[in-house]
């Protein structure tokens, strides 16, 4: 009985103190991530969350003198869970887009990468030749429409995969005239690309390159231009509730510092084998 009483008192005290600390001071920041988007954030063989964003988050938290706690959340509910207060920040390879800015706000961009199409070398798409190396959606449609229609011609009637509620799905809905398949995670889409259920997938280059390093992804090849800008957003940033402007300011400052001293480049080289710092 006595122990129970002590336990209850202890719980009450710790709850009150943690509430007091969280109020405005952000000594503890809960970071929501998906854990299924290699190499951004994923779960290793022993079940630990790892990836470029986990390393970056730990570095940023050190700079902000805050304690970081990671919360795993499925992608399709990742924004509602932030809004509902399940965690305070999203770091999940999420691109900053105008559409998402209607619901949440973002820190400054910490990494940026183009999107690309991937297929397998036995598929006819692997021989697709694109005139242009890049497709910048910020440019006028007179510049971009040629490339987009040549992509559409090549993929007519084919099954093309995207992950649900991503910039890539938005791109497909806006520009592509194909049979679209939406997947809950990149991992599941990877399996179906390799199995030949889809002819191609549109995703972020880092995610596809980490598939291509594995033995099951050895036949995966890319085609078409590097795609960026427009509705693909301005790069990956940390999602923050619109009211938490103080937290956004803390992240912006920490990201700027980490970018200036080369930390972001170092983490990027380690996980992406290339520098994708902004």
């Amino acid at each position, binding site marked *: 009985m006595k122990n129970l009483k002590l336990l209850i008192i202890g719980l009450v005290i710790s709850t009150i103190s943690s509430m007091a600390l969280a109020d405005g001071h952000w000594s503890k920041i809960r970071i929501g991530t998906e854990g299924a988007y290699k190499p951004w954030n994923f779960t290793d063989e022993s079940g630990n969350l790892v990836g470029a964003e986990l390393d970056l988050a730990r570095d940023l938290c050190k700079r902000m003198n805050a304690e970081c706690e990671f919360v795993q959340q499925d992608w*399709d509910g990742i924004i509602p869970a932030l809004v509902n207060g399940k965690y305070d920040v999203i770091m999940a390879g999420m691109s900053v887009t105008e559409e998402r800015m209607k619901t949440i706000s973002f820190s400054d961009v910490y990494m940026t990468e183009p999107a690309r199409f991937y297929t397998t070398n036995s598929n006819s798409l692997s021989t697709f030749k694109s005139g242009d190396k890049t497709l910048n959606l910020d440019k006028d449609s007179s510049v971009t429409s040629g490339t987009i229609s040549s992509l559409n011609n090549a993929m007519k009637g084919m099954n093309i995969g995207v992950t649900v509620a991503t910039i890539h799905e938005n791109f497909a809905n806006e520009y592509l005239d194909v049979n679209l398949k*939406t997947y809950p995670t990149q991992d599941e889409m990877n399996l179906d690309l390799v199995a*030949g259920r889809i002819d191609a997938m549109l995703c972020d280059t880092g995610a596809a390159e980490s598939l291509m390093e594995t033995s099951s992804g050895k036949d995966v090849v890319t085609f078409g231009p590097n795609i960026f800008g427009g509705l693909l957003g301005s790069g990956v940033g940390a999602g923050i509730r619109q009211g938490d402007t103080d937290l956004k300011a803390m992240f912006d400052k920490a990201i700027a510092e980490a970018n200036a001293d080369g930390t972001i480049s170092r983490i990027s080289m380690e996980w992406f084998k290339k520098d994708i710092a902004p």
Partner: protein
Amino acid sequence: MRFELMYESFFKIIEGIPLTLQVVSISTVLGLALAIIVALMRISGRKSMSIPAYYFVYLIRGTPLLLQLYFVYYGLGQFSFIRESILWPILKEPYWCGIITLTISTGAYSSEIIRGGILSVSKNFIEASGALGLNKIKTFLLITLPITVRQALPAYGNELILMVKASSLISIITLMEITGIARTIISKTYAPVEIFLVAGSIYLIINFIIVLAVGLAERKLGTVKAN
């Protein structure tokens, strides 16, 4: 509550009803055939028949449906000998993978319902039928089967409702049925409460119709006697 959003998404979500009903009805019919075979194997009295049937039911009831669906869809596609086999045109399609998994699942559960129904038929009826000079097959078709159907109906109605709900799992293998469409809308509108309420009500309506139909059948067959 965003009522306008609920109204708009209702019309998008009902587009998933045909796929839900298709998958449920095809797997229910195929599953019932499978269930009858498995149930007859279980009560055949021959070990070579009853033991495989027993382990089939044990395996399927003992593992989660979600896992089975992942196994059939993502798992089998990993093997190149399956991808090169004549089965691949079927296993390649998420639609058929969903139907196969649900058929196996309902086949296992329903076989136990049917077995229970058959075992509930009183020995006296069988003996009486023999005394009347009916052979084994006639006894089964005219005596055992009608009583089994009557006895098993309430439990089987339960299974039908479970099937409608289980079909929501096929949204994870890219099939855009009721739940799949609802999840897609949620990921764009960030309004889980509203959209799931709409999707939930659609399931309620479908299952209400099933409850009515099963109740009607029960009265027709005399499972429940009018008081």
